[in-house]
Structure formats: C-alpha cells, structure tokens
C-alpha cells in the first residue's frame, strides 16, 4: 500500500532531517512510527501525504508515485496533521462537504458517512456551527470525520490521540481497525507507546532521521515492552 524507498529530506543549510529511509506498509496493516521529538516522524508523514517536497528517494501509495502522480496518490489518501487547522470561516458541515467534493464522494454516501461518524463522535449537532466556535477536541473530531468519510486506502495520522477524550480515542481505534479489515492501511506517529504496542501490527523506530528498527510488533517487543525497547534503542536505558 505504501512503499517508501531510500527517502531522504535535507533542509536548506545541509541538515538531514531523514536519511535513506526504506519502509513498506501492506494493505490491512496498522503501522506505528515512533521516535523522539525531532527524529523525523512528521517530516516523513508530510512527505508521504504530498504536503512537503523531498530531495531523494521515492514514495508510492497504492502504486501512485507521490512525485510523478501526486493527484492520483492523494485521491486514495487521507492525512491528518498533529494540530489540524480547519477553515474557521466555514461551518462544520460546509467543511465536510468541501472535502467530500474534492474527493468526488457521491451525495448519498457522504450523507450516510457524515451521519455515521458524526453521531459516533457526538458532533452531528454542532455541524451547523462555525468551526471558529469549536473547541480543540471538536476540531480534532471534525478532522477525523473528514478523513474517515473519504474511505481512504491509506490513512496517515500524526499524533492522532492528542486532544481526543478517552471515548473518542476508543472509537477511533475501532474505526482504524475497521478500515484495515476492509483492506486499507494506517500509518501513524505517536508518543503513546502503550497504544502503539496494543494497536499496531508493525512498528518502526526512527532516531536522528535514520530507521533504527522495524518489524512486527510481537517480534520487536518480544518478552519486554515497547517502552523498554524504545528507551534501549535511544540509549536511555
């Protein structure tokens, strides 16, 4: 579903944010991406989503190269940044329709999906209000709904649990699993190692822009815990 081959990102001035990263996410997988602050997680996720340009390597989503066929790749993707800023001059329902229009989602499908996810996240009643009046958590939920209604082949999430209440987090985990059961894949970054350990089929650990370990969660963690593995790799244990 997602193939990252020898991806590198160098910032002006020569600093390498990510160095020669190769990583594959298969359909049906939830793939966790963990690392310290500044390790290169967000830089990688933004490059995968086609939001940020990169210097070396290739990234392909469902067979679409993000550089050669960005529109094709984005059509099957949904990306959620860590702090999603949404158009404050729009109402919640206008934003969802705007996204649905960009992704050519038919009217009946969008009505059904907005109702389903809106009710689940307890946001339907507020969809008629301007986004400017939403709390941080409500914005996060709206952004999540806007991602789910696309029925993406690949869902990219940057720190998705920040700002969500426990019940919304629980719901989201369920929907991520549903998505994967339908053959899609999820690639997300998180600092919540317990969640990553329980939720992910595969985990990659990145340090200073380089991939230091990746593989199936059980194999990676073994008899230890993800926290222990992570701290050991980071040289803090």
């Amino acid at each position, binding site marked *: 579903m997602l193939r990252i081959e020898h991806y590198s990102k160098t910032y002006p001035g020569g600093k390498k944010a990510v160095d020669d990263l190769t990583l594959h996410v298969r359909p049906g997988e939830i793939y966790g991406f963990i690392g310290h602050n500044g390790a290169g997680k967000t830089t990688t996720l933004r490059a995968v989503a*086609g939001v940020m340009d990169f210097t070396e390597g290739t990234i392909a989503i469902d067979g679409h190269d993000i550089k050669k066929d960005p529109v094709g790749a984005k059509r099957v993707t949904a990306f959620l940044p860590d702090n999603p800023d949404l158009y404050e001059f729009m109402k919640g329902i206008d934003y969802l329709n705007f996204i649905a229009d960009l992704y050519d*989602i038919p009217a009946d499908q969008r009505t059904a999906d907005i109702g389903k996810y809106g009710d689940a996240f307890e946001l339907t*009643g507020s969809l008629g209000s301007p986004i400017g009046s939403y709390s941080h958590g*409500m914005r996060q939920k709206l952004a999540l709904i806007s991602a789910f209604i696309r029925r993406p082949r690949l869902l990219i999430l940057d720190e998705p649990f920040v700002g969500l209440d426990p019940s919304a987090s629980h719901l989201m985990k369920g929907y991520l699993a549903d998505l994967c059961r339908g053959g899609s894949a999820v690639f997300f970054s998180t600092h919540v190692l317990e969640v990553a350990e329980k939720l992910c089929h595969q985990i990659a650990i990145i340090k200073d822009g380089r991939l230091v370990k990746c593989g199936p969660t059980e194999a990676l963690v073994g008899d230890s815990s993800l926290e222990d593995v992570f701290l050991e790799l980071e040289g803090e244990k």
Partner: protein
Amino acid sequence: MKKFFALLKVSVQSMLLSSTNSRGNSRKKAATGVGAMVLIAFLGLYMSGFYSFMLMDVLAPIHMESLVFIFMGMGALVGGLMFTAFAVKGVVFGGRDNDLLLSMPVSTTALMASRVMAIYLENLLFSLFVLAPAGAVCAFMTQSGVGHSVLFWARLLLAVFALPLLDTALSVLLGALVAFLSAKVSRGALGQNIVMALYLAAVFWFSFNLNGMIEELAANAMGVKESLSWAAPMLWMADGIMGDWGRLLAFAACCIVPFALVVFGLGKVYRQAVTAFAARSARSDYKLSAQAASGQTKALLMKEARRFFGTPMYFWNSGLGLIMLLAAGVAALVMRDDLRMYLDLLEGVPVMPLAALVMGFCLSMTVIAAPSVSLEGKYLWILREAPVGESALIWIKTGFQLLLSVPCTVIAGVCLAIALGLSLPDGAAMLLAMLLFGLGHAAFGMLIGLTFPKLDAVNETVVVKQSLAVCLGMFVPMGALGMCALLYWLGGMVSGALALALPIALLAAWGAACALILLKKGPAMLRSL
C-alpha cells in the same frame, strides 16, 4: 515601565514584520518591510503634498493658511481611522498570543497599552505623512511668513504627535464595537459588514461635503472656516500650528484625554473584554439532512467566496474598489445630465480615457487574488493534501477575482459609456481596455501573492491591510495605468487610432505576460511554499 517597554517592543516588532514576506533570510525580510514602508510614505507624502499645494495656492494669498491644516488634519484623522479601526480587532483584542501574555505577571492595562501603542504608531506615520508636507508647502508658499520660524515647526510637531492619540482612541472604540459584534451576533460577519458599510457611507458623505467646501474656498474662505465649528479640535489644531499656543494646548488636551480614558478604562476590563470577544460557543441543534454533491472547481470557488464574503476585513479592503466601480457607473448614469454639464466645462479633456482611468483606479483597488495565498496560511495543508493540482488552485484563485471583477467592469463600463455619450467604438475600446486590465491585474496579483507570501501572519488584518503583496498588487497596476495614459498621449500625437491602440496593446501584453509566467512558474512557486 520595563515590562511595558518589553511588551511594546513585541507589538512593534510584530507590526514591523507584518509587511514582510514569510520566506527568505532576515535581510530580505527587512528589505521588503522597509520597501513597503517607503512605498506607503512616498504615496502619503505625494498625495498630501499635492493637495496641500492646490489648497495653499488659493488660500495663501488671502492669509487663510490655517484652512489647509484643518483639511489635512481631517484627512489624517479619517484616513488613519480607515487604516486602523478594523485592524484593532485583530491587533488589540484578537492576538494569537493573548493566552500567553495574559498568563504573565503583567498588568492588563500595560498589556492593552502596549498594543494600543502599536496602533498609535501606525496612526503617527499617517499623521506625519499628511501634516509634514502641509507644513513644508506652507513654509514655501505662505505670504505672511508664518512657516519660517522654528516655533512653527515645534507646534506642527506637537500636532503631529497629538492627532494620532485622538485617532487611536476612536479606532480602539470602533474596533471594540466590531469585536463585540462579531462575538455576540450569530451572523458576526454580517454585523461587521453593516458597521463597515455605515462607516464607509459616513466617510464618503464627509468626503463629498469636504469637496464642496474646497470648491467654495476661493469665494468664501472665512465662511467655510466658520462652518467647520463642529470640528472644533481641528480648528484649534490649525490655529495652534499658526501660532495660538492656547488653542494648541486645548487641542492636545482633546487628544490626550480620550486616549487616556480609553487606555485606562478599557485596560481595567481588558481581560474580560478579550474573554468575551473570544467566547463563541458552538450550538448543538443541527439536524443532518441529505447532502448535495458538487465538483472540485465549484467547491474551491465556493470556499474562496465564503472566505471573501465571510471575512469583513478581506471583503471591505479588497472589494471596496468593485463597490466604488459599480457606484461610479450607476451614479454616472443617474446623474448623466449634471455629469455632461460638468465635463463640458473641462474643454479639451478627453472624456473616454478619463473614464477608463477612473475605472482602472477602482479596479486597482480590487486586490482579491494577491492576499489569497497568504490567507491560506495555517490552512495550506488542506489544499496540499487534496487531490487537486497546483495549477488548478492558482487558476481558481485568479478566476475568483475575475468572476467578481468582470461583471462589475462590464456593468460600470456600459453605464459610463451611456452616461458620457461615447460612440460605440470608443465604448467598446474602453471596455476592452478595462477587461484586459482586469485580467492582467488578477494574474499579476496572484503572481505577486506567490512571490511575497505571508503565511505566518498573526491574523487576516496583517495580510489584507499590511502585506507587501497587497501594496504591490494595488500600486503597480496603478503605475500601469499611468503608463497607459502616457502612451495615449504619445499616440495621440500621431493619430487617434494609435492613441487607443497603444494602451490596449500594453494592457494585452501585460496580461499575457503575467498569465504566461503564472502558467509556467506558478505551480512550482505554490509547491515550494
């Protein structure tokens, strides 16, 4: 006091950086900031110098120089109000750093004062650029020698510093009203739009009355001055500058007292005001019904329209030119007999180019595409992750300006052509020239918006009112109009047909060049933001 100056430094730095683009190194940023300031200073000095000269030419021989300072003072007051009143909502009450600064051990009055001082400094620039040229003109043209003493300049300086205090106090009060309305009225944008419409109507009414007074000056200058008794502080300022220290001090008190009342009064309730203005709670009674689907292009155009009509700052600053264009066209048609009589008095002045210049001036003020990229700012990720190509995004933003400007141009052009009794070829040539100008203006605006983006602006006020892209997007097309006028004049020396052909050719070349550059370089420029 130390804390106040630290806060003031932050406010001023933020204000100075507001006209710079968000990319490039600090030297480039400083250069663009200084460039924008120089541009505004030049225009202020030029316009004030020009009008002061015209007025002084009539008034100096009858020793009524003080009237120049009354009119220039009113101009500075109204201009400053227009410039800053709607910035107050963002700068004083809606800063993104409100939570941070309000959590610090600083008195709310000091915090409020530091932000109000940033507004004061903007008004001070306005006051300086308007009153200083009037002083210089007075010194050169006076026949009573009033402008030749050092004390005259000292009094003028005092007026320059005092006037913005009054301006700032009025701006803050109006800005607080706007912030209150946008928070408390369910359709906040509509409420703000109504306030802005009333305010602009008052400004235009005042300007028209001022014009009438200026026309009367030569015949009855003393009568005009006496009729301005309702603007007593301006009379005191003018008489003060001319030598009456008592009146100057009365004027200074008239400026300082309201300023102090606003700063200390609102300062005491600043925390409550900021909290109340920011409090917007979402309703929870929405019932989902069947949704309708539309295409990408319509969705993106609707998004631009929602932003434009739903952001009063954007609508009134960028759309005022179109309102003026339509108003000019309709007014010309309704009052065509008066207009023709007036034009008959201007013997030898070519009517069609004059009408085209008026239309072009209004269109120049319609800067919709130029700030649209910067207004994406923190929302840019939404468009970047969407399955839409960069060139489509660029043409939709450019097209949105054309969608509004083309119908207005056609309506105003037809109205003016009928009102002025232009022949069919002349009317068609004027309309063609203005449509080409509108096309070039939109494409140039988009190009300049991509070249000087301001993606890190603290609010839309900074982008719409102070960004370099908006300044250039407005004044460079005005320069192009000047070039057209020059070409018309040069062509007219050879033949009437050449006089028409040269400006149209220039506008066509300008539009084509901007569109071509946008086509070739635009997508890469957008991608690199």
